[in-house]
């Protein structure tokens, strides 16, 4: 969306218009709209040409005025789609607000997190973007399902809640000149990251585990978590480079995130920092649908930091809050677990990696529970699609759990629902966990075969149902307040025997021998 839009602005002679005090001309919206509609027209030249035409059309002032959103029409949409969270008065106190974190925006304050402006006033395009794309990592969904006109009308209506705040025209933020990503730039970015002490909130490796984390409050006094910089797809204002640079330069209004434009050593450091942040993690999580269990002939390392694990590609599994049984977890802390797994002729081992900004053990005095994670399997792997209830089974069908609790270690259990968990006597599971910089890495091992009906036997080439549950004790999670997945599958790859190294050469040699024989016989006859 961004490149054709930018192209349009240039094509229109946008530089003349783009002074620092450029008001958000409704024309620029109309332009953006017309460009986006034509985005699927093949050929960039055609797009540019069309944008040129569109641009010259919308430059006519009367046409521009006609494009502005209608606040009255926006009110109707607002009351239907937005008031549930943001409230009828726009004060962010809708009926759903108490369950949400971060809290819905209070429009009456006129403070907007995501701006491309140097002052407090966002452009209409900024508001339109948030409505359209939502705010990842929060309860604000993308509203692209609404007709575009409705979204513009919403922009107009939302602004009426703080009309005086919009009296000041938006002032475009001028970013320093872009510096492309390179190893040197990333190195400089890391240097600056340390010099300006981003780690105070975002943590040494960017996993939102900095020492100031617990103290952070937003403008309304609500606790607010710093961004996990390794999960760009949760960035409120988008994962792109320009978006990240803008947040760095501008800060995030109403939150503790300050503006850094004047607070880096050189202006281009904003881009070095951006390139460093981008290097911390992928743009999207690339969720897996299947967990592959790799066969190995050697011993399986207990150490979660062993090379064996580093050489395996993890399957990223998304977790959701448990909202079926009370007490529910509307704002889960753990949203992803990366799974690696191997097996040999005796054991199966799972390597789990997940981010948890606070390391906690059971501390009843502080009402804290230990961090925990569990893998869930049916007690017996049967053919067919029937599986126990994914939420830790029920009274008729139990599940088997392979659990780890910080401070208590690994255990096996049978569950008939999330509150009916019975440890299995004589647990054969072992494990080792390490915690560093806001991340757990855990290895859980178990014999491949089971001796009783309460535990499954893992068999190669069989699709085995698996589910995960996780608890961040530091966030007050325990019992049914958890993150969880529905059923996934894991599959133990067939063991690859050494015969593949023997049979093909033998066949080749035999073939060669036969050929030589044929040649010889033919020569003799000749």
């Amino acid at each position, binding site marked *: 969306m961004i490149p054709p839009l930018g192209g349009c602005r240039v094509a229109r002679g946008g530089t003349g218009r783009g002074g620092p005090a450029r008001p958000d001309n409704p024309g620029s919206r109309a332009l953006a709209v017309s460009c986006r509609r034509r985005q699927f027209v093949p050929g960039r030249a055609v797009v540019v040409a069309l944008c040129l035409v569109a641009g010259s059309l919308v430059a006519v002032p009367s046409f521009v005025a006609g494009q502005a959103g209608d606040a009255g029409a926006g009110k109707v949409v607002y009351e239907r789609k937005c008031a549930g969270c943001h409230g009828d008065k726009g004060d962010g106190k809708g009926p759903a607000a108490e369950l949400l974190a971060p809290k819905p925006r209070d429009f009456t304050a006129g403070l907007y997190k995501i701006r491309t402006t140097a002052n407090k006033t966002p452009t209409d395009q900024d508001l339109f973007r948030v409505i359209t794309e939502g705010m990842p990592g929060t309860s604000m969904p993308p509203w692209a399902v609404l007709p575009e006109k409705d979204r513009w009308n919403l922009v107009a209506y939302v602004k009426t809640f703080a009309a005086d705040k919009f009296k000041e025209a938006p002032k475009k933020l001028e970013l320093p000149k872009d510096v492309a990503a390179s190893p040197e730039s990333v190195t400089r970015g890391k240097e600056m990251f340390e010099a300006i002490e981003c780690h105070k909130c975002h943590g040494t490796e960017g996993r939102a585990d900095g020492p100031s984390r617990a*103290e952070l409050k937003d403008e309304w006094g609500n606790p607010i978590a710093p961004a996990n910089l390794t999960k760009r797809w949760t960035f409120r204002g988008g994962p792109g480079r320009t978006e990240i640079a803008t947040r760095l330069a501008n800060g995030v209004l109403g939150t503790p995130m300050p*503006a850094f434009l004047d607070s880096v050593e050189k202006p281009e450091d904003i881009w070095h920092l951006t390139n460093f942040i981008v290097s911390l993690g992928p743009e999207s999580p690339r969720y897996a649908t299947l967990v592959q269990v790799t066969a190995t002939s050697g011993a399986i390392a207990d150490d979660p930091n062993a090379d064996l694990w580093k050489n395996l590609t993890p399957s990223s599994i998304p977790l959701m809050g448990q909202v079926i049984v009370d007490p529910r977890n509307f704002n889960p802390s753990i949203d992803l677990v990366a799974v690696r797994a191997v097996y040999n002729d005796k054991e199966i081992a799972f390597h789990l990696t997940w981010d948890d900004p606070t390391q906690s053990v059971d501390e009843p005095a502080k009402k804290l529970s230990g961090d925990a994670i569990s893998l869930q399997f049916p007690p017996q792997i049967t053919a067919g699609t029937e599986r126990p209830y994914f939420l830790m089974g029920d009274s008729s069908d139990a599940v088997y759990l392979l659990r780890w609790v910080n401070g208590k270690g690994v255990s096996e259990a049978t569950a008939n629902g999330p509150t009916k968990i019975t440890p299995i006597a004589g647990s054969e599971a072992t494990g080792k966990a390490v915690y560093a910089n806001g991340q757990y890495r855990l290895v859980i091992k178990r014999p491949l075969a089971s001796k009783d009906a309460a535990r499954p036997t893992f068999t190669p080439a069989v699709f085995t149902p698996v589910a995960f549950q996780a608890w961040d004790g530091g966030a007050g999670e325990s019992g049914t307040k958890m993150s969880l997945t529905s059923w996934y599958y894991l599959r133990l790859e067939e063991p690859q025997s050494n015969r593949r190294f023997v049979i093909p050469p033998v066949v080749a040699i035999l073939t060669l021998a036969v050929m030589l024989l044929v040649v010889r016989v033919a020569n003799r006859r000749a």
Partner: protein
Amino acid sequence: MRKAIGAFLAIALVAGVAAVAHRPGPAGAQGGGTIEAAVTYAGAPVVEKLKVNKDTEKCGTEAVIEKVVVGPNKGLAHAVVSVPGAKGAPKAVKATVDQHGCKFVPHVTAMTPGELELKNSDDILHNIHTYSTANPSINKAQPKFKKVMTEKFEKPEIIKLTCDVHSWMLGWVAVMPNPFFGVTDASGAAKIENVPAGKYTVEVWHETLGKQTKEVEVKAGQTAKVAFEMKK
């Protein structure tokens, strides 16, 4: 002869006064009086303590949040005493707040509209986060290498100053419409000099104990005393 001396004296006086008037001096210096305010609080000091989990070399291991500081004889520190009704041009004095030992020093700064110099003498990251309505609120990082920052506050208002990195850090900047103000010291005393003679309402503001006002008459060359007893 007497007449001659009288005339001479009169001329000398006029000339002297004229000379003084021509010298650029503090506004209202001529014929001004002094207000001495004594602010007291009968209650106990309010101090919150917090265990520090970072930057302990600079911040210490325990942060002390002094919400109400009571000195000897119940004197209340950090109260802003002002004379909103007095007329006088603002002094062109740059006010300064230092972030030192993870505290804003001074805790309360009073200034006339203009520039505020923000220092970071801690050699660690702070962020200046202001809460204001008349002036644009700011949230700017001040990393260790940025020793001084200058911000403008053009409109009279009392602004809260915080640092999100060190949540206990709290300071206040009182932007005053005229130069007639003072901040009480540890004994609860504040002195406002060169106030033009006249009847005024003197106002006192404290961050947790609120506002009080009293009527005062200022006479040229004299000191008017005013006492406030702050209540919760």
